[in-house]
């Protein structure tokens, strides 16, 4: 059966570490990094990448629009 796999790419230098994307993700994919970007913000990253379905919810609520979402089908 075909399964959907997703991934996000965060524009690290433009992420403000606001955390709004974190509760928007029902799959609990996202966390803030321990490291900070050039502006001193802890940036969002995929802590749990296997769970991403590419649903785009995180990207839709990101106030700075810094999340790009990818999705593909895989034969399981």
């Amino acid at each position: 059966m075909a399964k959907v796999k997703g991934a996000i790419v965060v524009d690290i230098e433009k992420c403000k570490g606001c955390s709004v994307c974190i509760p928007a993700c029902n799959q609990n994919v996202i966390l803030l990094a321990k490291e900070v970007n050039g502006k001193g913000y802890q940036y969002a990253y995929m802590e749990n990448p296997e769970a991403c379905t590419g649903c785009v919810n995180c990207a839709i609520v990101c106030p700075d629009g810094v999340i790009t979402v990818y999705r593909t089908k895989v034969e399981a």
Partner: protein
Amino acid sequence: MDIKDIIKPENIVYQKTKLFTEKPLSYCPGCGHGTAHRMLLEVLEEMNIQDKTVGIAPVGCSVLAYEFLDIDMQQAAHGRAPAVATAVKRLMPDKFVFTYQGDGDLAAIGTAETIHACNRGENFTMIFINNGIYGMTGGQMAPTTLPGMRASTCPFGRDTEIMGNPLKITELLAQLPGVYYVTRQAVHTPNAVRKTKKALRNAFEYQKLKKGISFVEIVSNCNSGWKMTPNQSNKWMEDNMFPFYPLGDIKVPQLEKV
């Protein structure tokens, strides 16, 4: 499956619209202004009217909107965006014209311009970002500040005995025959954002009919002014702002096909 096999250009399902300039948004982390901008631009892009649109930026945190939205923009004196939009639309009736205003701008200093543009039935779209506070200047009380809500000029909460009651200007404007479409939305969750986009699309579609103002209020957070984290402010907004400013359509045109 390897992440590298997912992250390929042909698999992109969502990315920031090209109608944003490269400039990083000047808004505080977590502020709804950015999301509201993005939905507006996505609608213009989907309607393919970005080259036929003129936006009027306000005074407030979004005073620099013209730096971020890669469309024709003018910036107006505080509260005067509806007057400027009136002139632009009357001189160039084939353009799509919108104002983008905060609650201090639209419902305090600009009340006269707002009410009269609405009452004249001007044919543009008004986007009203209501965060219940003067965000830009340091979180002073606005006409929209809730009873009991704290602001820098009412640090113990708005006392309606002394400071009067908050103004639901959107419901007031909906009474005017010159106002064609009125809705109130939000941008703090994926579903709310999708509904806001639909509302903005309706507003610009209705503008084509030239039947008056189409008005979209977006109840938004000002996490800095409210002195909360972004996610706390969004929760606070649900618990406190939405009961007073309920989301949903307020005036919907009857049986008009657009």
